[in-house]
């Protein structure tokens, strides 16, 4: 084999390695994506979605979901207790699709999505008066601005801030 042929093989190998690496990266992204959009779960939607929208599991880390599920009878000032069978299924679902511990870390002693680092960062340009608008009422009311929050879609293009 002469040098040109050897170089050609080397080039092809390089291409294949590059291609494989690219595919691995894409696969990794797709996995991260699937984690971002968890498949809907019936008991989660029914039980977690009756007093507020059913908050997507990826908005909090597993540890925080565990704390929330352990005190549902005292859920931010109301009794939100569910039967043990539904509670077990909801807990498993929340933990399986929970957010990364680093990105969704909650402030010390916090349990609220609105107290996570990413939430504060994502909303840091919102004037505080917006949260107090009658149509918003509280930062827990995602759907006041995220018009498609109920469907788990928080994309910027679907945001309408009420006046």
């Amino acid at each position, binding site marked *: 084999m002469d040098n040109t042929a050897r170089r050609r093989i080397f080039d092809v190998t390089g291409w294949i390695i590059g291609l494989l690496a690219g595919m691995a990266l894409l696969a990794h992204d797709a996995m991260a994506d699937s984690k971002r959009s968890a498949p809907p779960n019936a008991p989660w939607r029914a039980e977690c979605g*009756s*007093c*507020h*929208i059913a908050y997507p599991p990826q908005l909090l880390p597993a540890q925080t979901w565990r704390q929330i599920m352990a005190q549902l*009878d005292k859920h*931010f*000032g*109301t*009794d*939100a*207790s*569910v*039967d043990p069978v539904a509670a077990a299924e909801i807990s498993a679902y929340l933990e399986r699709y929970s957010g990364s511990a680093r990105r969704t870390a909650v402030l010390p002693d916090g349990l609220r999505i609105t107290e996570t680092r990413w939430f504060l960062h994502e909303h840091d340009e919102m004037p505080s008066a917006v949260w107090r608008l009658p149509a918003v*009422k*509280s930062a*827990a*009311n995602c759907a*006041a601005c995220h018009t498609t929050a109920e469907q788990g879609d928080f994309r910027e293009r679907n945001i309408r801030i009420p006046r």
Partner: protein
Amino acid sequence: MVLLASLAAAGTPADQQKRFEDELRAAGSPLGGFSAQRGEAFFNATHGSEWSCSSCHTSNPLAAGKHARTAKLIAPLAPAANPERFTDAATVDKWFRRNCNDVLGRLCTAQEKGDVLQYLMSLK
């Protein structure tokens, strides 16, 4: 399957009244019947803390309500306005448990639940 499950669970508001009556009987409480008037007063009153039933369900249970804290829409509570109400025993028990704890800080008695339902059934 969903249809079958909902058929299996189907009940009527009168079925729930029957359950509350059985509860009273089992507890050996006097059976004086349920009163829509008492139920209405109970529904609109606060019971030692901030909320009444009407804080979220409004004083017109034929209309939609709104969660007092989260502002989420609540479908009408009166069966005449919302035929799904009081058709499933487990759902009825779950919400009486949660909401009585929130409004009264305790579970409601069968008499209280029966009175409230009597009131809701009287609305047309």
